[in-house]
Every structure is written in structure tokens, then in C-alpha cells.
């Protein structure tokens, strides 16, 4: 059957089982949007392309499926870039389509032309410019394959308008063939020899720590992780991206490590004799001063991406492979080990319990409305079952510290790029992917304003996300650094000119609730959840509250500031 490029595009998306896509049309996408009209794919019209990219990303993180977004050429494409870079840093499978000017005009400074593949080359896993209608189907198939396999990431397809209009034969059964790219063969199975070496190190260790990250969530390996910790009785710390990969109520859980990690996680790492890193990339937020990181520890590192291994920290036993696969193999061997070293491990656990008892994660509990309290209440009211997206800054750290994440894919945050404005659209994407879930965006007053326009998208599509603004009237995280390291010179961090967020909600046709007293928090939360549509909760919290513990820049991981003197 002869189909146009635009038709092949839509047919291919249907074959990829795309249920929903996010974006904004434009001149060079008219042929494609004409076919999308009436197609069995739900289209969410956003109010900014950045919103579309983050929604696709939030959808992908919540569901594990590939998120899809689309933008027109030139400004549409450049508006997508922050979203692509965000997904790229956090290894999120997204396929983005951009319209492009007609092939004979490419490179001519044509109207609304930007070199989209050039601009996005370093912020995508891969990208394509499709110049021939006969290549559309295979390119889309390849793009989805690349986005979701190996270390996932965003893939962009630039799609000139004349290619959308051209036509060719389209054969369905051909499309179903498996993708084979000779130069792209991710390794899923760990090398048995390396696995053996790892087991030997584990056998000998007395003060081991498992340090697990986003790779465990991506790999769907939370079960394997739990089993490994249980059989070995080795405590577990998670990165920001790993939240939910291990049950937080477990005795073995140490909380997050790193700059705003717990005192006990950081001390456990620094005093350990073995670190078992699983799907985590030794980011500078967690190593702190690199030359003083875990000085006594040997390191085993399981990661699907060889470039993550020995990048920052020299690794003793690298295992390249999928976390789930590798842990499964390891667990078989570990189960046979029995109770060796358990005595020593008990001693180590005792030491850790001591640290936990002496330096718990806490905040000042008085009559004031503190942001940490709001997060704790959200946890209580949602019974820990909600999906929590966050913005960036103090709100993000409090959302991590005071909500207990017991399930994977329930904590959605921009870790690597730290994109303010990410949380709200990501929450919309997550809610559309998981409509049965209560979804919160724990927000900062600064960040929320970076994609506030998506209120229209949420209202228009009846997406019931709850935005809990921890409104401190500051770019709080930056203000905190100014307070601690720049003599309280609050340069350009005051947001007292904020709009009235309740009125903003109402103007968009949503419910807004302002909360200034501790006693009102729970009722407001319950009210917000009981309402179908989006709700903005404006929590007027203590303005100069700080995030602690904290490891200052340049310090050792265990040089923890526990609070203000």
C-alpha cells in the first residue's frame, strides 16, 4: 500500500504501541498533524515545548515505557532542548520528533530553520535527519530500540516537511523485523569470571556497603537488590536517582548518600572496606572530595555502560552488564555462601545503628510551618503510595529526605541536570501514564514558575496532579549557599514579588489553597486529593529553613555539617 511519510510516521508509532504523545504543531508539521487528527494516539497539546519534553520524560519514568514528544522546526526544536538534556543526563527513554524545513532548503537560513541534529547531538543518545520517505519506518523502529535498550536515553528524529508529504510503499510485516545495528550491541550478561571475583571480595569483606542508583530502577532489579541485601546482611545506601529501589523501612537502609545524604550513609561509605556499586555513576554529588573518597574500600561496580566505570573512582572489579541479570547470577552464588562473616557484619551493623541513633535525619519540630513537615504529611496522607515528582533546589532535597519511597518509579526528579521547571510537567506525564495514582509535584516557588504555563494543559486535560509549593519566597537552595558561604549577601535570590498562586490556580480554572499554619496542612492535603482536577497548594513555609545535613563543596564525604551552630 502506498502511504505518505506522515502516514508512515503515524503507522510506525502505532506499531511501537505509542498511546500518548506531547507537543505543539507548527508550519512544517502540518502534514503530520493532519494524520494525527483522528489517529488512535492521545495527543496532549502543551503550552511550551519544554513542557512536552518533560511530560514525555515523566511518563517514561513512571511507566518504564518510551515517552514521545513532538515540536516544530526552529524555535519548537530549540525549546525542546532542555527537556532532552534532562532526559539524557538521567538515562530516560524518550523519542522526540521535530519538523524540519524542506530538504532542499536545509542549510539555507530558511524560515524557522535551526540545525536541530547539530544542536541536539551532544544532549541525545542518538539523532537522525530523515531525508528519504523510504527510511521513515526503519528509522523510527531503530530510534525506539536505541532509546529503550542498553543505557536508555533520548533519541531525536528530524523530519523535513517534504519527506512527510512524499509517499512510498509501506509493508507492515517488514516493519516487524528485529532491529540489528552492528555497531550497537549493549551487554546484558556479566562476565562469569568477574562475578566470581566479586563474590570473593564480598566473602572477605567485613564492612561492606551496597551503593545503588538509577540503574537498579531502570533494570527493574529492586527485587534482586532486596534479596542480595537480605542474604548478605549488607546495608544499602541509594543515590537520589535510586530512591525506591530499596524499602526505606528496612533495618539495612541507610538513606541517601552524598552532599545532602544522611550522616550515617556517608560515614558508612567512608569507613567501609568494600563498596558494591550497582547502576550508579559516582557522581561528584556523592563522592565529595574525590581523593578522599572511601579510602579503605575495594570497589565492585556493576553497570551496563562501560563509560560509567572507573570514570571518577578507580574500580577493582568492574562488571559490565544489566543490574538485574548480574545480581541474579550473584545471588545464586551468594545464597550458597551461608552465614560466613555474619558475626563481623553484625558488628558493622551495630556501628551503623549507633551512627543512626546519634545523628538521625531530623528538623526542628516547633509550632512553625516548616517545609519538612509538609513533606512528612504528604507521606502520611498518601500512605507512601503516591508518585512524587520534584522541582529543583531545597524542595527536591526535602522531598527526598522526608517522604519514604518504598517502590521503584515513584520518585521522579531531575538529578543529573538539575532542571528547575521539570517537576510539574513531569508530574503531568506521570499522571497520564499512571492515572490510578495520586501524583504530587513537590515544588519550589521559583521552579514552579519556570513551567507554570502547563497549568492550562493540566486543566484542559483534567490531569489531577497536586502541586505542593514549599513557598519560601526565595531561590532557596542558592540563598542557603549565600547564607553559609557568602555572608548572607542574598544576591538575586529574593522572590517576594511572587504572584498570588491561589489566584493563578483560579485563573486557570483550578483549585488553589493557601496554607500558613501547621494545623491546616493535613486538611488541605486531604481536600486537594479529594478534588479531581489539578490543585495548587501554596504552603507559606519558614523562609530561611536550610537543608541539612550537608557536605560543603570541596570537603570530604564525612565532613558533614549537621546544622547551624
Amino acid at each position, binding site marked *: 500500500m502506498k502511504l505518505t511519510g506522515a502516514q508512515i510516521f503515524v503507522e510506525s508509532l502505532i506499531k511501537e504501541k505509542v498511546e500518548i504523545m506531547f507537543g505543539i504543531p507548527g508550519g512544517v508539521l502540518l502534514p503530520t498533524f493532519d494524520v494525527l487528527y483522528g489517529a488512535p494516539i492521545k495527543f496532549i497539546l502543551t503550552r511550551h515545548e519544554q513542557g512536552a519534553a518533560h511530560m514525555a520524560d515523566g511518563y517514561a519514568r513512571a511507566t518504564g515505557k518510551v515517552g514521545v514528544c513532538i515540536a516544530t522546526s526552529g524555535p519548537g526544536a530549540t525549546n525542546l532542548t532542555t527537556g532532552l538534556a534532562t532526559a539524557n543526563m538521567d538515562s530516560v527513554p524518550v523519542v522526540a520528533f521535530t519538523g524540519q524545513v524542506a530538504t532542499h532548503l536545509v542549510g539555507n537560513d530558511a524560515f524557522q530553520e535551526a540545525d536541530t541534529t547539530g544542536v541536539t*547531538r551532544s544532549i541525545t543518545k542518538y539523532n537522525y*535527519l530523515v531525508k528519504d520517505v523510504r527510511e521513515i519506518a526503519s528509522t523510527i523502529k531503530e530510534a525506539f530500540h536505541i532509546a529503550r535498550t542498553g543505557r536508555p536515553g533520548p533519541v531525536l528524529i528530524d523530519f523535513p516537511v517534504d519527506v512527510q508529504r512524499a509517499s512510498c510503499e509501506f509493508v507492515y510485516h517488514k516493519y516487524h523485523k528485529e532491529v540489528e545495528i552492528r555497531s550497537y550491541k549493549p551487554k546484558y550478561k556479566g562476565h562469569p569470571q568477574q562475578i566470581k571475583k566479586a563474590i570473593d571480595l564480598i566473602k572477605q569483606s567485613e564492612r561492606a556497603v551496597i551503593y545503588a542508583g538509577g540503574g537498579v530502577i531502570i533494570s527493574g532489579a529492586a527485587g534482586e537488590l532486596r534479596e542480595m541485601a537480605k542474604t548478605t546482611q549488607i546495608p544499602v545506601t541509594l543515590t537520589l536517582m535510586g530512591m525506591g529501589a530499596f524499602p526505606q523501612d528496612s533495618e539495612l537502609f541507610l538513606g541517601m548518600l552524598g552532599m545532602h545524604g544522611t550522616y550515617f550513609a556517608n560515614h558508612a561509605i567512608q569507613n567501609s572496606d568494600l563498596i558494591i556499586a550497582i547502576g550508579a555513576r559516582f557522581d561528584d554529588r556523592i563522592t565529595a572530595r574525590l581523593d578522599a573518597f572511601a579510602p579503605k574500600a575495594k570497589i565492585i561496580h556493576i553497570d551496563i555502560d562501560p563509560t560509567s566505570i572507573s570514570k571518577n573512582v578507580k574500580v577493582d572489579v568492574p562488571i559490565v552488564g544489566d543490574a538485574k541479570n548480574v545480581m541474579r547470577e550473584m545471588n545464586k552464588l551468594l545464597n550458597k555462601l551461608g552465614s560466613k562473616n555474619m558475626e563481623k557484619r553484625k558488628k558493622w551493623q551495630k556501628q551503623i545503628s549507633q551512627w543512626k541513633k546519634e545523628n538521625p535525619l531530623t528538623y526542628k519540630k516547633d509550632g512553625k510551618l516548616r517545609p519538612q513537615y509538609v513533606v512528612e504529611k504528604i507521606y502520611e496522607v498518601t500512605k507512601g503510595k503516591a508518585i512524587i515528582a520534584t522541582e529543583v533546589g531545597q524542595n527536591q532535597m526535602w522531598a527526598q529526605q522526608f517522604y519514604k519511597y518504598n517502590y521503584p518509579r515513584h520518585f521522579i526528579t531531575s538529578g543529573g541536570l538539575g532542571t528547575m521547571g521539570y517537576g510539574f510537567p513531569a508530574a503531568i506525564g506521570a499522571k497520564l501514564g499512571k492515572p490510578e495514582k495520586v501524583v504530587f509535584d513537590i515544588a519550589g516557588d521559583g521552579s514552579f514558575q519556570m513551567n507554570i504555563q502547563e497549568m492550562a494543559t493540566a486543566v484542559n486535560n483534567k490531569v489531577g496532579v497536586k502541586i505542593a509549593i514549599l513557598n519560601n519566597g526565595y531561590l532557596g537552595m542558592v540563598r542557603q549557599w549565600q547564607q553559609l558561604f557568602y555572608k548572607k549577601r542574598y544576591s538575586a535570590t529574593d522572590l517576594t514579588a511572587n504572584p498570588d498562586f491561589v489566584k493563578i490556580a483560579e485563573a486557570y480554572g483550578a483549585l488553589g489553597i493557601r496554607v500558613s499554619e501547621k494545623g491546616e496542612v493535613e486538611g488541605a492535603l486531604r481536600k486537594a486529593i479529594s478534588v479531581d482536577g489539578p490543585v495548587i497548594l501554596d504552603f507559606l513555609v519558614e523562609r530561611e529553613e536550610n537543608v541539612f545535613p550537608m557536605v560543603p563543596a570541596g570537603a570530604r564525604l564525612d565532613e558533614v555539617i549537621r546544622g547551624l551552630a
Partner: protein
Amino acid sequence: MRHTISVLVENKPGVLARISSLFSARGFNIDSLAVGETEQHDVSRMTIIVKGDEKILEQVMKQLNKLIDIIKVIDFVGQPHLERDLVLIKVNAGKGKRSEVLEIVDIFRAKIVDVASNSVIVEMTGDEEKILALVNMLKPYGIKEIVRTGIVAMGRG
């Protein structure tokens, strides 16, 4: 340390940009780059000469391997291999000096490929060392222009 990196890539647009940006993003200068088709028309070979910090280069090698269009990466350091570069040198060779220039060309087993009244163009193939030696010998006569193809390398055996 100097590295000779040989990269087998898909012969596609954008590949060169992907590779060169891996180096430039880390502040590495590519000293030499040669690209050409291989025995398979859809596969190209790039030979890249770089100097740089070993640890960063190790990371670059991994990143190269990770690029989706790259089929294979070899670092020839410590491996038996051949390197060749072709150079064209336009050198002053007026009446009085011409025979001296020709003598040098002869010793290096280079060739004169163009003759003008005041200059000649010398062509030579060789490794880096030999080319530098020739250039040094010709310098006193006044070199007007040098063009090199870039080094290509092949493993022995």
C-alpha cells in the same frame, strides 16, 4: 603521550562531528586526522593522532566505543603497526640552490612532482619522524607551503 587511534565507523553524515566533539569537549587537540573508505563501501576508517592525559584518554576511548556509529576502536600504542603520512612541500629552489635541494630529495627517496622557475614541490610518504627530518633539511632553503594528508596506520601481520 601520543596515541594513534584507529576508528572503524559507519559511513554516515554526522559521524565525524560526533567523534571530534568527544575530543574538543575535553580540550584535546586532534593533531592529525585522516578519513577514508575501507574494503567495505559503507564503512570508513578514521585515524586520529592525539596527545593527552592518559586517564582522560581512557575515558575518551570508552566514549568512542559507546558512540552508536562506531564499529571498532583500536589504540595502536604498544602494538606493532605501520604509520604513513604523505606530505607535499613547496620549497624555494632558485638556480644556485636547486641541485642541493635535489640531493636532499634523493637521500630521502622523495620525489619532485612540480617544477617552477624559483621553487619545486616535493612529495614524500613516510612516518612522522621521516617527514619532520625532511622538513628540517629543507627549511634553510625557505619552505613556502606544506600540505599533509594526515597519518594513516595499520596493524602489522
